[in-house]
C-alpha cells in the first residue's frame, strides 16, 4: 500500500504544469533565463534579448577554419538535443533550487559534443561558464564566447568609441541625457579592440551590460552577426574545454562609465 501511495503522489506531482519561466534569476535590472538558444538576458516584457548561445559561439581549428559550436547542418539534421523541456527529477530539483536562489540558470546541448552554459550570479555580476566536452583528438587554436546585441543598441567602450550604427536622434538624446559624447568607429564590420570592457546599452530597456575581458582575452565586435565576442586561447583538459565570460549589469551608462 505504501508503494501504491508513493506512486500516486508521484503521479499527482507529474500533473503539475512546468512553468514557462522555470529558470529565471535577476541580475540587477535584467533577468537571466534559459531558452532554446541558450541563456539570455532580458528585461520584463520589452522583447529585447541578449543571448549567450552555441549558435553564435565559434571554434577556430588548427588549420584556421572557423566553425560555429553548433552548425546549420546539425540543426537541419535535428541532432541537437537540449535539456529544456523535460519534467524529470534533475530538472524539478534545478527549478526548485533556482527559485530559492541556490542555483542559477544553466542550459545543455548535445550533438556529437556536449555543450553546457552555466551561470553564477553575485550582486550585479554574472559569469557564464561554457563547457564543451567530447573534444578528443581535435586541434583547436582559438575559441570565442559571445553575447548578442540588437540593431539599435549602443555598443561603446570607456573612451566613448561607439561601434554600432544608431539612430542620430537617439544618439543625440543619449549624449544629452548622459552628458557624454560618442565617437563613431563604424568603418569596419569586424572590429578588434584593445579595450578590456565593452558596454551594450539598448534604448528599449534600462540598464547597461558591461562585457569584461581578462588580460589574456581579446574583444571583437562583429556587427554583421551583432555579437560581442571574447576570444580566449584554448586549453583542453581530458577532452574538455572550459571558458568564461564575465558581465556586469549597471543601472545606467553614467553608472557604468563611472564604475569602470
Amino acid at each position: 500500500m505504501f508503494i501504491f501511495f508513493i506512486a500516486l503522489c508521484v503521479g499527482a506531482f507529474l500533473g503539475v504544469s512546468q512553468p514557462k519561466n522555470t529558470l529565471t534569476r535577476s541580475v540587477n535590472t535584467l533577468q537571466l533565463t534559459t531558452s532554446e538558444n541558450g541563456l539570455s538576458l532580458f528585461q520584463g516584457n520589452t522583447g529585447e534579448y541578449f543571448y549567450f548561445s552555441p549558435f553564435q559561439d565559434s571554434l577556430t581549428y588548427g588549420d584556421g577554419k572557423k566553425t560555429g559550436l553548433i552548425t546549420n547542418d546539425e540543426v537541419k539534421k535535428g541532432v541537437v538535443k537540449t535539456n529544456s523541456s523535460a519534467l524529470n527529477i534533475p530538472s524539478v530539483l534545478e527549478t526548485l533550487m533556482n527559485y530559492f536562489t541556490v542555483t542559477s540558470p544553466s542550459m545543455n546541448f548535445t550533438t556529437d559534443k556536449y555543450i553546457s552554459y552555466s551561470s553564477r550570479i553575485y550582486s550585479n555580476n554574472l559569469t557564464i561558464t561554457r563547457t564543451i566536452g567530447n573534444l578528443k583528438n581535435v586541434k583547436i587554436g582559438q575559441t570565442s564566447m559571445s553575447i548578442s546585441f540588437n540593431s539599435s543598441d549602443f555598443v561603446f567602450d570607456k573612451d566613448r568609441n561607439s561601434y554600432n550604427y544608431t539612430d542620430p536622434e537617439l544618439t543625440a538624446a543619449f549624449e544629452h541625457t548622459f552628458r557624454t559624447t560618442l565617437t563613431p568607429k563604424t568603418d569596419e564590420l569586424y572590429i578588434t579592440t584593445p579595450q578590456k570592457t565593452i558596454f551594450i546599452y539598448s534604448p528599449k530597456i534600462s540598464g547597461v551590460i558591461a562585457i569584461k575581458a581578462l588580460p589574456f582575452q581579446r574583444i571583437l565586435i562583429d556587427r554583421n552577426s551583432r555579437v560581442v565576442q571574447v576570444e580566449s586561447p584554448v586549453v583542453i583538459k581530458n577532452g574538455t574545454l572550459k571558458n568564461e565570460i564575465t558581465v556586469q549589469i549597471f543601472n545606467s551608462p553614467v553608472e557604468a562609465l563611472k564604475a569602470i
Partner: protein
Amino acid sequence: MIISLISSLLFYVLPIFLGRPIVRFIYKRNLTYPFISYFMAGSLLLYASLLATFALKTIIPLFADLTLIQEVVFFLSFILLPLNFLISKDDFDIQSYLLPIATSSLFAGIAFSIWQFHGPYSFNWDLYEHQTLINTILGGNLSLIPSRLTDTFGFNGYSTLFHSLVAASQAFFQTSILSYWTTISFIHLGLAIFASYLLTKELTNNKLIAIIASAVTAFAFDSSISYTTLFFIPQTFTALLFVFLITQLISEAKNGRIPAFLLFAVSSFFIFINHYIVGFLGASIYIASYLYIKFSHFIEEKINIRTAIMAGFFLCLAGILFSSYIPLGFINSGEAQDYSLTLLDKFNIMKQSYGYLFLLFVPLGIFSALMSKKRIEILGITILVFLVSIVLMQFPYTVKFFTLAKLFSDAFIAIGIYYLLRQMNKFFKSLSVIVLLVVLSGIFTFNAISWKGILAYKDSYTQVSPEELQASEFLKGHYRNTQTLIVSDPATQNILEPLSTINSQGGAYSNKATRETLDEVSKTDEANKISSLLYKINDKIDSTNGKRLFVLSGRYFLWQRSLKTQKMAFSYNIWGPTPLTLENIVYANHLLSDPEHFSLVYSNSELVILEVKK
C-alpha cells in the same frame, strides 16, 4: 510591521468584541465556534452604524465635519466593549483549539514564506482598487454602493461592508498600506487553513485527516480567478465565512441543535452583501443545509436520499455537458469573454493548483465517505459535487465559485489520502505523510514560480517598485486634498491612486473613453494636442477642473506599445514595475520642450511626472 499586525488583527478582533454582547444577549446558550457569529453580528452593527451616521451627516450640518469611522468606532466600543466583562465566559475548550491553531500557524508560515520568497509585498493586484475605496471611506464618505464612491468600481458586485471593516481597522494607526495588506493576507491564509482543519474535523472526527486537509489547503493554491487562500478580497473572505458557517452548522447538528433562526438569517445576509454572486450561492447552500438538517427526519421519510443524490448527480453532469449549448452570447461578450473558460482551460488551472492530486484523491475520498454512510459526510459530498459542477459549467466567471468549493475539495482529498494511509502501520503512515508534504510543497513552489515569473524585478518579485512608492509619497506630500487628477496607463493609476490618495479616472479600470483618449495621445507628437486630450479625461463621480498630472512611467510606454485590443481590455495590464528607457526619456524631453503645456514636477528611474497646462 507591529503596527500593521495590530491593525490587521483589529479587523477581526474589534467586530468580535462588539458582537459578542449582542449575540450573548439574544442567544443565551453557548454556541460551537461562537466567534463566527460574534464577528458577523459586530460587523453588521458597525456597518449599519456607519451608514446611519453618514445619512445623518448628509442631513444635519452639525455632523458634516465628522470623519465618521473613528467617532462611530469609539462610540460603539464605549458602549459595548465593557459589556464583554459583564457577561459570563464562553464555554470554551481552549485545549481543543491548540492543535488546529498550531497546525494552521505552522503550515501558514511555511506556505507564506514560499509564496512571498523575495516578494516584499502581497501579490494581490486587487488590493489597490479596494484601498482606493477604503481611502474614500476613511475620508468620511460612505455609500452602500461602491460605484457611488469611486469610479474604480464600474460593477457593483458587493456592498461596501468589506471596505468599511478594513477602513475601521486602518483608522487608528498610521500603517504602511502595503505592509497592512501583506500582514492581513498572512492572517487570512492562517484562518483558511484553520477553517479547513475545523471543517474536515467536523466531517470526519479524525485529527489526522484534518491535518492532511490543512496541508492541502496551505499548499494547493487556486492561483487563477478564485484565489481562496492567499488573496484577501471580498470573494475569498465570503468563502472563508461560508466554510466557518457550514462548520458551525455541522457541529451544532452533531450536538442535536441548530443555530437560532435570527443568527442563521443574519449570517446568510452577511455573506450575501459581502459578495452578491459568491455570497448568494454560499447563502443558498447554507440555507439548504440548514433546512436539510432541521427537517432531515421529515425529508428522509418522504424522499429516498440515495435516489435524490443520484438524481442530483446526473443533473449536475447534464449541467456540465449541456451548458455550452445554452445560447449565452450576450453575457459572454466583453470582459466576460476573458473569463469564459473551456473545460480544457479549467483542467489546466486544476493542474497548476493541485497537479493530479484532485483527480486522484477526490474520487477516492468521495468513495470512502459514501461507504461510511454518515449523514454529515453525505452533506459534504453534496455541497462539493454541486459546487464543482457549477465551476465546470460553460458560463463566464464560474471558476470564481471554486472559492466556495476549495476547502471541501481539500477535505475530500484528505479523506481519500487517509483511505490509503489507514491500511499502513505507524512507520509507513508517517513516512507517507512526509512524502505527501514534500510533493505538496513541490506543487506549490512550481505554482509560485509560474505565477510570479513575470514579476521579477531586480532582486525581488513585486508588482510595485521602491521608485513607485517614492513617487506616491511625493504626490501625497504635494497634491493631497487638491483638485488634481493623475493620468497614466491603468496599472500605474492602479498603484499611484491608493498609495498617494490622488484621484485618477478609474484606476486600473479606467473607462473606454479614457483608454481611447490615451490611444489618441500615442498617435500624436504635438504637445498642445496632447495637453487638450489629457484635459478631456475626467472622473465622472468626482469631476475636477483642476490640474492634470501626466505620469510617464515605464509601464505607460509599454502599455502604449500594446495592441489596441489589449489596451481596451480590463484583463490586460503591465503587471510588473518597468524602468524608463532612453526612448521614453526622449519622449518626455520632447513634451518638456513645450513649457507652455508641460512642466516637470518629479522624476526618477521609473517615472516622470509632468504637470499639464491647458
